């Protein structure tokens, strides 16, 4: 009962907090502060769950879950409110709370119109994303999957710039097309399972027992994979991402890259592989190929970019390619690496988008060609940009390296060729990163710009993220330990 209270609070607290903002729609300052308070409490709540991780598993919980709650919701259709948290969910929930908090802080000054609505949407989205990471019922999962989509649509549409309506619609259509197919597949497996057992249920731990003919499972898995591949994004379904990032407000970019991209990978790990093991294995080589091609191609395209946000967007595609590779080989070390990489990429890219957002806020441009010689003008900003760019380029001792290295070490055993090609993918990020750094930070200034260095608010969360990067780069053990049991259970090896 205690578990269920904790999980429900964790899930719905941001939503309730968001709804609390409605009376304050005309009072931006107060709305901001309330939202920040809600976000902070949510982060504390999420961190509090870490303490439960060592507790004995509750009765009735699937193996590996240390928090679990299951209750009826729509009994006629066998829909249940099943929430559960294992090490994987825990890390991603904490990441969600942290990134949402950063998203609130980066939009502190830059959002000036409809402030309360902006924060309301951020909080609704937080509930949606946390719901995705906690649901163990496919109906619930689908529901939250769609819930997190809608606020993002409005974020881009209302506060975006450039061709924001085009990008918002594009983002919406891409993800919707994928997820509708997934809905069909969910209904399909629901009916098949009901026919076989007479018990109609959307619960994951019921549905995994379904025996499916190979061809059927292949079709159903493809529908899931499509939905997840759009979110990842995998080649060639990635083109919504650069547009969405470029035209989104900073908070939108931060959440998009930091969190939404992770939901695809999470869905594949939590639902795709357990529900359709043979089909998933059979599609492994396809996934590996798409992953490796994505790594190389996206890094290569990133080099040509002139807009900083587009550059980071393409680099996100490349980094998520590593995650896809780690999942596709489906081996313990690689999968742990992929999970770690999800967290690491979330932290690093959040910081990078926040930094670009700050520059945009000050200079009203994100064109690389406008800047130059920033090191001499705004040293603190430049230091953070250099730091996070190096983390993103895979500098050992910082966080991204750990995930990427484990993925490569784990996948080399299974697919040496892919791993070797992916290794080439550690040169290319350096090439575009140092070019970007050089043109922005070094050389001489190209346009006279009056820029203020970062303030306490910005320095505070950037410093926090930087510390997290260093900590995870030097001592990832707590996180690895957290996912070790779930990974072992998923793959079926001894932890």
């Amino acid at each position: 009962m205690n578990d269920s209270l904790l999980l429900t609070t964790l899930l719905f607290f941001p939503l309730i907090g968001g709804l609390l903002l409605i009376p304050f729609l005309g009072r931006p300052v107060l709305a901001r502060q309330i939202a920040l308070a809600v976000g902070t409490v949510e982060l504390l709540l999420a961190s509090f769950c870490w303490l439960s991780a060592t507790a004995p598993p509750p009765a009735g919980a699937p193996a590996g879950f240390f928090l679990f709650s299951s209750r009826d919701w729509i009994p006629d259709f066998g829909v249940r409110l099943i929430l559960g948290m294992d090490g994987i969910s825990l890390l991603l929930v904490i990441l969600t709370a942290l990134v949402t908090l950063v998203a609130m802080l980066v939009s502190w000054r830059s959002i000036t119109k409809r402030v309360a609505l902006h924060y309301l949407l951020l909080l609704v989205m937080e509930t949606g994303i946390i719901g995705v990471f906690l649901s163990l019922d496919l109906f619930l999962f689908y529901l939250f999957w769609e819930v997190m989509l809608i606020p993002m649509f409005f974020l881009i549409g209302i506060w975006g710039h450039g061709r924001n309506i085009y990008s918002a619609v594009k983002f919406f259509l891409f993800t919707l097309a994928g997820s509708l197919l997934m809905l069909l597949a969910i209904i399909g497996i629901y009916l098949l399972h009901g026919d076989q057992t007479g018990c109609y249920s959307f619960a994951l731990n019921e549905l995994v027992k379904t025996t499916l003919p190979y061809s059927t499972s292949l079709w159903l898995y493809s529908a899931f994979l499509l939905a997840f591949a759009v979110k990842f994004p995998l080649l060639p379904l990635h083109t919504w991402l650069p547009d969405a990032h470029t035209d989104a407000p900073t908070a939108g970019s931060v959440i998009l890259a930091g969190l939404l991209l992770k939901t695809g990978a999470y869905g594949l790990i939590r639902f795709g592989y357990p529900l359709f093991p043979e089909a998933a294995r059979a599609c492994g080589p396809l996934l590996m190929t798409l992953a490796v091609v994505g790594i190389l191609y996206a890094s290569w395209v990133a080099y040509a970019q002139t807009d900083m946000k587009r550059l980071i967007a393409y680099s996100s595609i490349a980094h998520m390619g590593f995650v896809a590779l780690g999942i596709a080989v489906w081996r313990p070390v690689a999968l742990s690496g992929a999970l770690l990489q999800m967290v690491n990429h979330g932290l690093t890219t959040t910081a990078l988008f926040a930094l670009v957002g700050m520059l945009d806020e000050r200079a009203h441009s994100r064109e690389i060609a406008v800047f130059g010689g920033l090191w001499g003008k705004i040293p603190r900003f430049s230091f953070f940009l250099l730091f996070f760019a190096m983390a993103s380029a895979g500098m050992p001792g910082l966080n991204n390296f750990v995930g990427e290295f484990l993925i490569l070490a784990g996948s080399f055993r299974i697919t040496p060729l892919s791993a070797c090609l992916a290794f080439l993918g550690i040169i290319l990020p350096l090439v575009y990163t140092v070019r970007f750094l050089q043109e922005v930070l070094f050389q001489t200034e190209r346009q006279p710009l009056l820029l203020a260095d970062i303030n306490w608010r910005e320095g505070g969360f950037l410093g926090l993220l930087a510390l997290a990067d260093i900590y995870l780069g030097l001592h990832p053990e707590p996180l690895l330990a957290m996912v070790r049991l779930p990974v072992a259970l998923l793959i079926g090896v001894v932890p």
Partner: protein
Amino acid sequence: MKLYLELIILLPLFGALINALCGRHLPRRLSEWLACAAIGGSFAAALAAFSSYSSPVRIEIASWLADFDFSAPLALYLDPLSLSLTLMITFVCGLIHLYSVAYMAEDPCYVRYFALLNLFVAAMLLLVLAENLPLLYMGWEGVGFCSYALIGFWYKEVKNADAGRKAFIVTRVGDVAFGIAIVWLFMLCSTESIVDLNSMGGSIPPWKLTAIGLLLLFGAAGKSAQAPLMVWLPDAMAGPTPVSAQIHAATMVTAGVYLLMRLFPLICLSPTVLAAIAITGTLTALYGASCALVQRDLKRVLAYSTISQIGFMMLGVGAGGITAATFHLLIHAFFKALLFLAAGCVITAMHHEQDIYRMGGLRKTAPLTFYGFLAGALCLAGFPLTGGFFSKDGILTAVWEQGGTLYSALYTIGLLTAYITALYTFRTLLLVFGGDCRSEHKTAPVPPLMNFILLPLALVALAGGLLNLPTVFGSGLLSGFLAPLIVGPVIDPSHSTELALLLASSAAAFTGIGLAWLRYGGGRRQLRLNEAEQPLGGLSAFLFHGWYLDDLYALLFIHPFIRLSQFFWKRVDEQVIDGSMDRFAGLLGRWGMLLGSLTCGRVSLYLLSFAAGAALLVGWLAWLMFSAGGG
């Protein structure tokens, strides 16, 4: 021992952290003093570790990467090889830090400079002391980053920033090969510990061992500026001169050699790999020496000579002479740091002029610098009885002892290179210090601290031979110290062979020096200066531009890369992939319009379609009924 080892690395790291975080708020002297004291403390800890050293120790500090069967802890390993390098690094870097205080006295960005310099030393020591390959890789990339940041230290000039970027990327190309070797070794041996790997070479299939060895060689070639990845080092001279001395002469660039020596028990099982290492080393040595012959920039001469000398070390490793290669690595660090620091004095005295054809007469105006440079030049040229003479001769002896056609040919090229080395060294010396002052300005005074630093380095470099005398003159200290590392047969030439080889080396050095004097000494100097006014032609231009490798790589790799990136973005990504999605969406939209036009408000059309639909439905139901009834 654990404390000493931790201090060795942590002191420079803390120095870097303090300077980076609050150096700006400290008084300048304190900031500088902190940086130097950090390295000094590290050196003291290294000495303490040396005095209490008895046998190899492995010390685990914390866990780092550990997951399922994969394990790479934060652990350090001290054996004679890492210990001797640690002593050298902390000693040389400590002196260079002191030198930097004077050299950078005018620069306002000293905080960033010292923080990076300290961070570099920490990373370099981590590289040397790492117990496993991923940790070594961390140090490896760490020094690469510091090198990048320090080459481009004066970032306002495009040239400097470009040079830093080039160094970073070219070495990263080698790192890919190194990275693949790391995970491949893990796959084969299920361990990343260097000591364990070294004992497991026998269980690896030969072809895989050869492939891994070649990958490691390629990785080492990136860091150590060996063929075909040597193009970054000459440009790296854009950084401040003490940086060139510390990173691009004494320590980081020898990391590749160190890697190969560290894993020598593994790679020596493959004769192909050893031959490849020896050939790479010899070719690079010849390449560097030939290019150094015609350079005009003082620092570029030294850079090419570094490439060439590291080639010698590689040759030593390839010939199985680990002791000789280590010896040369240490001695080279001393005399090359000395040469660079002396060059820094020269450049200061010449008001930042680096063209050797515009120098001259410094023997009289800056005598202390002259003697320092002379000591370094004698070592580099292999003048008999200097440290450089013995260390280079040790390598050539090891090559000679290998015998066979290949190694005999390599010995001949090596001897030829030694001769060219003496020639270009004394060409530089004579042009810089000989004759009369050509510069219009008066020479600037060199800060005494800078000249003073040259003294200890000169002593160590000149007397360094005592560390490891050939067996003719007694026993080698270093050989005894490094003996536990030797695998396979010990190289033990007869005394007569040894003497003959010493004589051959001396002859090469004397011929080179003599020829340099004949061309650049006395009155011939003016002839050469006049010649230098003419544009370079033919072979000279070829050598001056480093065999045009930069242009070749630009043509083969850089331009295609940039063009393809544009192509992928504009054509493939925007037009083909995104365009097809947009066209698909447009198609759907047109269908929608078409269907939408049906709902145009004409009731007659609605009635008609209603009737048609109903007829279809009824017809379908009827067909179902009849077919069911018929069946």
